């Protein structure tokens, strides 16, 4: 939800500033498909075969995060990439130092109202939070607790999500990428067939 909101806001802002969404399609991102692969791997880990099998879920989750770090390093010149990278490393550091899943404290889950039995079981330490990459761990047993999933948006419904400090940097980094790419042509590719949007007269004030 945080990422969707950040990207949506960046798209709207970029559009209002005279940017072109089509530039996103022309941006050269090395190994861009790794994001889709990582997402697929995490779906398996969280909702598929890895749902009740930590032996499968943890390698998939950690492996996909490591892959994202590598790809972000390869694309370090892109706008927002360094901020995004720091966010990734913060999340990964916290997960690795706590066994491979992101720790969340019982009181944090209670604060956010995530107390349903199907989601948190009995709420005991070491229980995986269903539908997430989290594992329940008391704060005093959590390494790098400051980087864990310990913050709550406090918003109602689907917007009431838990997040980490790393997540904040991820949102900032990806929003920067979207906004900067839309408003400045970073592509070194030859422009393709001109589309009506490309030919649209942009008011001089936006130039």
């Amino acid at each position, binding site marked *: *939800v*945080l*990422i*969707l909101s*950040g*990207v949506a806001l960046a*798209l709207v802002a970029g*559009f209002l500033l005279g940017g*072109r*969404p*089509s*530039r*996103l*399609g*022309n*941006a050269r*991102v090395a190994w*861009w*498909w790794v*994001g*889709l692969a*990582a*997402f697929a791997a*995490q*779906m398996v880990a*969280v909702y598929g075969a890895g749902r009740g099998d930590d032996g499968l879920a943890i390698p998939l989750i950690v492996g996909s*995060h490591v892959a*994202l770090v590598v*790809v972000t390093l390869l694309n370090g010149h892109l706008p927002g990439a360094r901020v*995004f990278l720091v*966010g*990734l490393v913060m*999340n990964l550091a*916290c*997960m690795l130092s706590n066994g491979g899943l*992101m720790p*969340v404290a019982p009181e944090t889950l209670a604060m956010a109202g995530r107390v349903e039995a199907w989601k948190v079981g009995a709420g005991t330490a070491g229980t995986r*939070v269903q*539908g*997430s*990459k*989290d594992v329940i761990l008391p704060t005093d047993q959590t390494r790098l607790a400051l980087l*864990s*999933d310990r913050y709550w948006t406090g918003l109602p419904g*689907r917007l009431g*999500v*838990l*997040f*980490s400090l*790393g*997540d904040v940097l*991820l*949102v900032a980094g*990806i929003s920067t*990428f*979207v906004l900067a790419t839309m408003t400045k042509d970073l592509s070194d590719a030859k422009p393709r067939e001109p*589309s*009506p*949007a*490309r030919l649209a007269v942009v008011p001089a004030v936006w130039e």
Partner: protein
Amino acid sequence: MRFLGNNWRCVAAIVSIIAFAISGTAGDPTPW
């Protein structure tokens, strides 16, 4: 989809960007 410049590559890019970012987040990997 005219504002996208009739360019589905752009839509694919946005989907990829969201998948990439969501995969990096700490908790819930689903966007809903």
